[in-house]
């Protein structure tokens, strides 16, 4: 029996008057890669930002329903939002290295915890970059600016930066949308390797990527969860006509 890591119950989300997520119910299992596909504006990114409460930062954002992560209702009182965000690291569509060195980017979140021991930080940097598949390319220039890396390298740096915090979950929001096929392949390889230790939610508008990388896939359409199932089933015999139409490229 698979262990349920995240339980989402009747989740609705509003931006002001606009209802951007409508009554979402789903489970995420531990150590799986869950893909979320769907056309633009279907609520995929909003769903991710509900999970680590980054949507708190957007004025007019409001949530209904329940999200339980590792047994904790994350919208309950007494939730440490800062700790929650460390537990659910997120990688955005556009790679955003902070304007500092590669090294400092990786340890940014770790330093916030007050860790400053040089040897410990060195080790975290090497481990995280190694896991993100970037160590070999940058180990000789860790103290140069991260802004000088290529787009693909920057995105892997962003993944390393999240891994440095030892999160339990990695949320990826169309992480390869701006990257070339080779960089995309490298990131997909990293994701497969990471699955052993992390639970991953991958939002992608590239359905082939979902087919290549994920264990299960959820299809979102205009704020609704249309269906969720094992990836091979979604791609070969979807239950809903709209899923089939989307996958065959009839819209989206």
């Amino acid at each position, binding site marked *: 029996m698979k262990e349920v890591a995240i339980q989402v119950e009747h989740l609705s989300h509003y931006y002001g008057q606009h209802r951007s997520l409508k009554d979402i119910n789903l489970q995420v299992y531990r150590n799986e890669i869950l893909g979320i596909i769907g056309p633009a504006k279907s609520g995929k990114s909003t769903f991710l930002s509900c999970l680590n409460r980054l949507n708190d*930062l957007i004025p007019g954002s409001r949530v209904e329903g329940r999200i339980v992560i590792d047994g904790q209702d994350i919208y309950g009182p007494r939730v440490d939002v*800062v700790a929650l*965000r460390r537990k659910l*690291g*997120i990688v*955005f569509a556009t790679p955003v290295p*902070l304007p500092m060195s590669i090294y400092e980017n990786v340890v940014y979140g770790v330093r916030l915890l007050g860790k400053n021991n040089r040897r410990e930080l060195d080790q975290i940097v090497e481990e995280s970059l190694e896991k993100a598949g970037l160590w070999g390319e940058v180990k000789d220039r860790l103290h140069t600016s991260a802004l000088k890396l290529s787009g693909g390298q920057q995105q892997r740096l962003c993944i390393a*930066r999240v891994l440095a*915090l030892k999160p339990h979950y990695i949320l990826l929001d169309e992480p390869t949308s701006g990257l070339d096929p080779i960089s995309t392949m490298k990131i997909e390889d990293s994701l497969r390797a990471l699955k052993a230790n992390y639970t991953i939610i991958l939002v992608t508008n590239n359905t082939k990527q979902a087919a290549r990388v994920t264990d299960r896939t959820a299809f979102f359409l205009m704020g609704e969860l249309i269906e969720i199932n094992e990836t091979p089933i979604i791609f070969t015999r979807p239950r809903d006509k709209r899923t089939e139409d989307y996958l065959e490229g009839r819209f989206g």
Partner: protein
Amino acid sequence: MLRINPRTEQKIISYLLYFLTSIAIIVLIFILTVILKNGLPQLSLEFLTKNPADMGREGGILSTILATVFLTFIALLVATPLGVGTAIYLTEYTLEGRVTKIIRFGAECLAGIPSIIFGLFGFILFVNKLNFGWSILSGGLTLAFMILPTIIRTSEEAIKSVPMAYRLVSFSLGSTRWQTVTKVVLPSAIPGIVTGVILSIGRSIGETAAVIFTAGSALRMPTSIFSSSRTMAVHFYILAKEGVSMPKAYGTAAVLVISILAINLLTYYMMGRYIKKKS
């Protein structure tokens, strides 16, 4: 009808605009020439290291240089944290709305008040009410309020221009708002903030009206922040207006102008290096 062919028209217009643009530069060159031509011959080590004697007819201007430095230093010491703090509050800690509009409008109004009114305000509040007397402290505090709007506005612009994505990333890596401000937002905004501070230094060094009312015009060497003292700009004003000594007045003006130019050049050089290091 007089018709001009387009190429001639283009030529005439560009010469005209070129002429208009050069007027600004010509004025600057004119001022510098007059000041330096009359002032530079006065400059000597003695001029910079001796105190004024005989009401400023003899000796140097050391005490006025130090008074200027102390006054400006106090003004910056007070206005920079206040101004940057206000800018951080307006951009990071509150939503755009009635309160921010009122604060911003207030700052704009403050910027429009003539400096002599600031002098009067400083005289009433610091010199009389708080009993600081004519002193470096009263003058510095008055200048602080005068330069506050500049620092608020430039800092706010600088902070606003930091990409939103940096903040989002910082929050997503588990930082608090304050950590995001100090570790990501401010370091990126520093060049803009420093520009505002330099503008303010220039204004403080050159200010007379607000200072003469609050710091006084004593020629003695300032010994504490409660000493009444005379800044370079005030010294120049008194020397020239009372006809004490035009040569010494020009000498003072030259030191004033050269130090402002030097501060500008030095800071732009340092900012250039800072930006290079960051990117």
